[in-house]
């Protein structure tokens, strides 16, 4: 074994010596081309040799590991001892237990004695060592010869192999620490997408910056006449090689920059060794930055009521150009969406826009949070678009109606539990304590859940106050019973007794009675809420329909595609709401449907839905006017159906909430009587006015002509000013009031044509009141600090400029009209005095009604009492005004005041009815987008930035480029 080991060591040493010479020689022979690879190959060969030596050593070790193998080896060379030796080894190793130990020992002793007589040189001959020694000697001699005869070659070879000196791969080349080429003229042709002009660096050192994709053209002069030249890339020149064109001493080459690197010139002179530059020239990369984008949203975290549109704005800049802008949203659970926004014009470096994001496009459940941001891609077509992302915002959609429905669902679930508890109570065996305990546990859970529902309802603005009160009382009653039973069961658990069992049975009776009441009460409330919910949905639908009708009219007159888009959106929303209405009706019980739901109402709704399909068809056919007409018809049908539904709810209330409804009906009856009486007063005032007008007309025949002419001029001017009012800036109320003012002006003109100055004055006063109302409405809106929209200030200014003219018109007509006191005869004056007394009496009744409604608020459904009182109070104010005017003998003003009072009383009837079912005003108004606060302020910096970005494109004076760039960058920041 030792001999084997020595042989192996000698072979390895010999191989190493051969390798020490052969590897550098191989390196020298091929290093000019792919030195690092060849080096690797050579090193690989060396490694394989070493590995072979190790393997050889392991084989030797393995061969001689077993004693038996050695015994066989010795036996082969000395056959006389072969058998005994093998037996001895085998018996000693494996079979000792089967034989007598003494016998084995005797055999071992005998064999040992015989082995001692053997000649070791016969068994282990020395020729193997001789061979390896010879190999080592030859290798050593060759190495010594090579080292002494060609030390440089070996040295270069080793450097090549170890990559210590790459230039050595260029056979005979010299590294030059002085320039080997003259000034370098570099022309940079930037990638097309950047639209940058070519740049020439006329006398460069050779270092330059360029963008990926830039084509570089080099031109220089060889300082030593050259046969050929190359550019060697890479820090060590081991990268790509580009051959240069050599014409006389002029060298040129062209290449495309893809990454930051360095290069060297490599010349093959006509005489002498090749020359290579010692110091490389650097190429730095000029990066194409990702676009910068800023998103503006109404708030970082926004709660949106309903699926409205959100106003968003963005500004984006890029150094070379923007290719796309995308709104990206993520509502979690893998629900993501992207919306491509307007594509900027090609090559545009800036993009900015304000847009509306329609949440109906987003698959959102109420309460779900969605994050969103804007992504802007640049136009880099070399390495692919760079993406800039804005800050992310979040919003959460909530709908009071849907939240209310969720609470209703909880109530319905609780109702089921209560019915089950009642069923269990009715049938529980009186002496089964365990069964009672199980029911008790469920009863306690019912109380807890009822408490949760009460808490939820308190935050629900659609929940009726009386519902909360009813559930609170119910909870208190159930809680008391549960507590009593709790104690009783605990006592029975400790010690069962007959008296306790009797008490338990009594408790059952009390619980059953209570649950019977509560189950029915809750069933009534669930039915009522279901119907109120349906009505609430019809409120929303009515609003949408009204809005659509306006849009149709607008589209029919303007043909504006933006309006058409808005119509499409509203139609979608309306159809969804109609489908929801149908779904909700489907959830109502047969009993409610049969008893309270009018078949007409259902049919009219169906017809209205069919009608909507017809509108769509007409719209698709481009028949805008016909579609507008059809829309009006559909709305009328729907309104009829809605009216029927209101009656259905009244019927349900009369049946299930008889006492509340009876009281409301009683008050509503009083209110209706008042409205009728007030209408009679207005009619009497009108009759007095007619009489007054006739007299005035006779008296003022001559004056009327001049007054008419002057008044018409004022009306003309006033109309012009009213036309200048930007409609988009008006609040919904002001939007409704403006046509009324215009209508009154029409009336003034018509009255003037008829020569009826008194009536013209009355109409002018109404027009004045309308314009004053609009001004006050807009003023209050602006004062709130949160104006309706950015056009509202303009609208306010326009209205304010129209108001003096309206006043002038009234004054002009007043000048031309004699005082009523002068004109009215004694009879009319007497009638007026009587009328005032009637008005006083009606006013007193109205005040009493208001007081009564306030006092009964708690006993009436919903907020009907409060709504009625408020409405009647408004009417009372008009009545008081009427009384003053009647006292003054102003028939026109008196008539108007009485009419206003009558209108207020009618409104009070409608509003108290709506308030009885917690009707919410302004439902479906979600057509108005959620705006970015201060969007106007945002406009100025945007324009400013645009200008700067444009200025940046202009060429800066030579030598000031960097300063100018920094200046602009600071400005933008």
């Amino acid at each position, binding site marked *: 074994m030792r001999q084997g080991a020595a042989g192996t060591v000698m072979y390895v040493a010999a191989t190493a010596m051969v390798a020490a010479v052969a590897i550098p020689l191989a390196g020298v022979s091929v290093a000019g081309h792919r030195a690092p690879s060849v080096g690797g190959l050579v090193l690989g060969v060396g490694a394989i040799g070493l590995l072979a030596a190790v393997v050889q050593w392991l084989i030797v070790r393995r061969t001689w590991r077993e004693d038996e193998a050695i015994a066989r080896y010795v036996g082969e060379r000395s056959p006389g001892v072969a058998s005994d030796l093998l037996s001895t080894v085998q018996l000693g190793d494996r079979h000792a237990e089967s034989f007598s130990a003494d016998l084995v020992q005797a055999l071992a002793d005998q064999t040992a004695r015989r082995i001692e007589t053997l000649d070791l040189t016969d068994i282990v001959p020395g020729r193997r060592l001789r061979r390896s020694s010879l190999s080592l000697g030859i290798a050593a001699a060759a190495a010594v010869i090579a080292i002494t005869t060609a030390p440089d070659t070996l040295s270069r070879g080793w450097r090549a192999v170890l990559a210590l000196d790459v230039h050595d791969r260029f056979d005979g080349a010299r590294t030059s620490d002085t320039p080997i080429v003259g000034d370098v003229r570099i022309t940079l042709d930037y990638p097309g997408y950047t639209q940058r002009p070519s740049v020439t660096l006329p006398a460069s050192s050779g270092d330059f910056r360029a963008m990926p994709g830039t084509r570089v053209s080099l031109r220089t002069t060889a300082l030593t006449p050259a046969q050929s030249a190359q550019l060697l890339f890479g820090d060590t020149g081991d990268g790509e090689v580009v051959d240069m064109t050599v014409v006389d001493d002029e060298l040129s080459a062209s290449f495309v920059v893809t990454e930051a690197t360095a290069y060297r010139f490599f010349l093959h002179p006509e005489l002498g060794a090749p020359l290579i530059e010692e110091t490389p020239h650097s190429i730095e990369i000029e990066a194409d930055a990702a676009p910068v984008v800023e998103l503006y949203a109404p708030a970082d975290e926004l709660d949106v009521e309903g699926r409205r549109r959100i106003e968003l704005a963005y500004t984006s800049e890029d150094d070379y150009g923007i290719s796309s802008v995308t709104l990206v949203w993520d509502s979690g659970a893998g629900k993501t969406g992207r919306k491509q926004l307007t594509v900027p014009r090609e090559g545009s470096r800036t993009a900015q826009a304000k847009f509306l994001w329609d949440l109906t496009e987003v698959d959102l459940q109420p309460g779900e949070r969605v994050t969103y941001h804007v992504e802007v891609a640049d136009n880099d077509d070399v390495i692919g678009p760079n993406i800039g992302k804005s800050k992310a915002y979040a919003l959460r959609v909530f709908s009071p109606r849907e939240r209310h429905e969720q609470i209703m669902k909880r109530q319905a679930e609780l109702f*089921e539990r209560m*019915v*089950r508890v*009642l*069923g*269990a109570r*009715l*049938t529980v065996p009186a002496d089964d304590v365990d069964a009672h305990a199980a029911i008790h546990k469920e009863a306690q859970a019912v109380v807890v859940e009822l408490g949760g529902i009460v808490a939820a309802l308190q935050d629900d603005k659609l929940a009726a106050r009386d519902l909360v009160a009813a559930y609170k009382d119910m909870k208190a009653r159930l809680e008391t019973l549960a507590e009593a039973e709790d104690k009783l069961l605990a006592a029975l658990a400790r010690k069962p007794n007959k008296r306790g069992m009797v008490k338990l049975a009594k408790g059952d009776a009390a619980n059953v009675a209570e649950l*019977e009441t509560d*189950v*029915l009460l809750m*069933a009534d409330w669930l039915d009522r809420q279901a119907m109120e919910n349906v009505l609430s949905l019809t409120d929303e639908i009515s609003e949408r329909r009204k809005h659509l009708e306006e849009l149709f009219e607008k589209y029919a007159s303007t043909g504006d595609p933006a309006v058409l888009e808005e119509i499409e959106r509203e139609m979608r929303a309306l159809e969804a709401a109609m489908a929801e209405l149908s779904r909700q*009706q*489907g959830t*109502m*019980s*047969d*009993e409610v*449907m*049969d*008893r309270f*739901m*009018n*078949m*007409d109402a*259902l*049919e009219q709704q169906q017809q209205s839905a069919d009608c909507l399909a017809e509108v769509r068809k007409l719209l698709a056919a481009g028949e805008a006017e016909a579609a507008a007409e059809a829309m009006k018809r559909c709305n009328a049908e729907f309104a009829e159906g809605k009216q029927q539904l209101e009656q259905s709810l009244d019927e349900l209330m009369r*049946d299930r909430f008889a006492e509340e409804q009876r009281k409301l009906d009683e008050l509503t009856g009083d209110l209706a009587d008042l409205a009728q009486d007030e209408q009679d007063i207005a009619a009497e005032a009108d009759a007095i006015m007619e009489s007054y007008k006739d007299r005035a007309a006779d008296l003022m025949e001559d004056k009327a002509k001049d007054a008419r002419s002057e008044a018409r001029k004022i009306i003309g001017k006033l109309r012009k000013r009213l036309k200048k009012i930007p409609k988009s800036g008006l609040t919904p109320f002001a939007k409704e009031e403006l046509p009324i003012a215009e209508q009154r002006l029409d009336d003034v003109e018509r009255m003037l044509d008829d020569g009826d100055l008194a009536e013209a004055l009355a109409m002018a006063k109404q027009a004045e009141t309308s314009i004053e109302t609009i001004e006050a409405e807009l003023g209050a809106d602006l004062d709130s600090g949160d104006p309706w929209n950015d056009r509202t200030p303009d609208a306010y200014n326009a209205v304010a400029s129209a108001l003096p003219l309206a006043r002038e018109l009234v004054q002009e007509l007043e000048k031309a009209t004699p005082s009523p006191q002068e004109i009215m005869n004694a009879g009319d004056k007497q009638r007026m005095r009587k009328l005032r007394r009637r008005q006083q009496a009606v006013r007193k009744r109205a005040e009493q009604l208001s007081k009564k409604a306030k006092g009964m608020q708690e006993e009436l459904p919903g907020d009907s009492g409060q709504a009625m009182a408020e409405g009647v109070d408004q009417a009372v104010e008009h009545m008081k005004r009427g009384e003053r005017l009647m006292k003054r003998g102003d028939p026109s003003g008196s008539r108007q005041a009485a009419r206003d009072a009558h209108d207020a009383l009618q409104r009070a009837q409608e509003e108290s009815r709506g308030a009885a079912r917690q009707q919410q005003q302004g439902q479906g108004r979600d057509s108005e987008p959620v705006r970015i606060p201060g969007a106007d302020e945002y406009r100025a910096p945007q324009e400013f930035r645009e200008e700067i970005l444009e200025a940046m494109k202009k060429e800066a004076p030579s030598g000031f480029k960097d300063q100018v760039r920094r200046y602009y960058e600071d400005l933008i920041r």
Partner: protein
Amino acid sequence: MTRARTAVFALAAVVAVSLAPERASASVVADYVKTARLLQEWQFEAARAEVDKLIARKPKAPETRYLQGELTFLDGDYAGALAHLDGLDDADVFGNVGQLRSLATTSLEATEGFASYESPGGHFVIYYPPGKDEVIVELAASVLEQAYEVLGSDLGYAPKRKIRVEILSRPQDLAKVSTLTEKDIETTGTIALCKYGKLMVVTPRATLFGYSWMDTLVHEYVHYVVSAASRDKVPVWLQEGIARFEETRWRRAPGADLNKVEQHLLASALKARRLISFDDMHPSMAKLPSAEAAGLAFAEVYTMVGYIHDKRGYAGIRKAIALTRDGKSAKRAVAEVMGKRFNQVEKDWKRHLAKRGLERAPALAKRTGRVRIKKSDDSEVDDNAGIDQVASDEARKYARLGGLLRARNMPAAAAIEYEKALAKGGEDPFVAGKLARTYLELSEYERAIELATPLLDIDDTDPVPATTLGVAYLAVGQAKESARSFELALRINPFDPGVRCGLAQAYKQTGNSALSQRERKACDMLTEHAPTP
């Protein structure tokens, strides 16, 4: 066609003759008026002959084409009727073109895709929407053929023309193809009509609890017979009286037996002297203000015709019809038949009613027999639907609780609440019916039979007791009684799978295999086409 419409035609025709000779010659207008009158008087064949003459003379005249259209419409070919009106203006023929076009269009829509079935006797062709309504078509045909035979004998008139019967899917369709409104239908529960020479009936499937659809079909057929026999001269009160009196003749002997609900209505009105006058029943029972009013009016005219029948037999009724046809007013005709002035007839009739010992039953105050329209698509009907029929507030409260518990599969608890309701409500039939059904679920069949049996006399249009009895008798092994009870239920609610499947079983047990097979087929069809072994 209504009488008023004909009057308008006639007047307009005269105007047209004098003022618009360029539109139609005088003879065409005169022929038109004549033909229109024939149509109004249900003399369809005579009208057809006149139209043929007009076609030969003036084939393109609007009047000719309109009349062709009207005849085609009356034949039930709505598309053909519209084709005849093609190119005519709505205002043509005194505006009748527009009316007919609208009617034909809605009729076409309402009957689109209908299948048809001719009765074995060949006197009726039934049009119906394919599907579940198939389960009543054969029954309807059989009932109508029986009525054809009996009425021919009773009233002395048997139509020769095949009569078109349309089973409509929804009450709204009935409103579309007639002058009735949805409100009329809902208020009075009018569910069928005889108009335009055909019978139109809404399928019981469109109602909550069904209705006496077999009698109703016959009722409408009686109208057909009376209209044709009298040339549509008999006024509403007598028409309805004869129809009500004769509607059950296909299944029983003549007689004006009143159920307890009708007795209560009539007795209460007599006591309060609030009977509805015969004149106030014009123009239609469906236009009366409430279901109670309609129920009372029907009870009145039913007993009046019963009274005439009692005194003068069918000969008297036939004579009254004939006299009316010949131009006498109905009241005069009846007076002539009875041999006294009509005022006296009325007095005698009231006296006759007083003698009948009509009973008032406050527990039935809210039962009007109104057909209840189904307003949701649910196949299952809530347990508490119809609870408004319970007169006592207290009883209604417990009955509601019973319904809520029963619907949640707690029959034992439900029975307790229904018992409380029954104790409070004085044997209210709605509560008793529900309680009987609940006892069925608790397998207490004897108690169920005990509760349900008296209910049949109270309101024979209520399917609940009949169905309950059918199931209970079957459970206790009394197949004959079961079949009889189910047959009663079949007359009301033929789409209740419980009725059809139960009847199949009862017939099988009584050895009536043909009927058992018919009912089994219906049962399979109603239980989602899943054949049962």
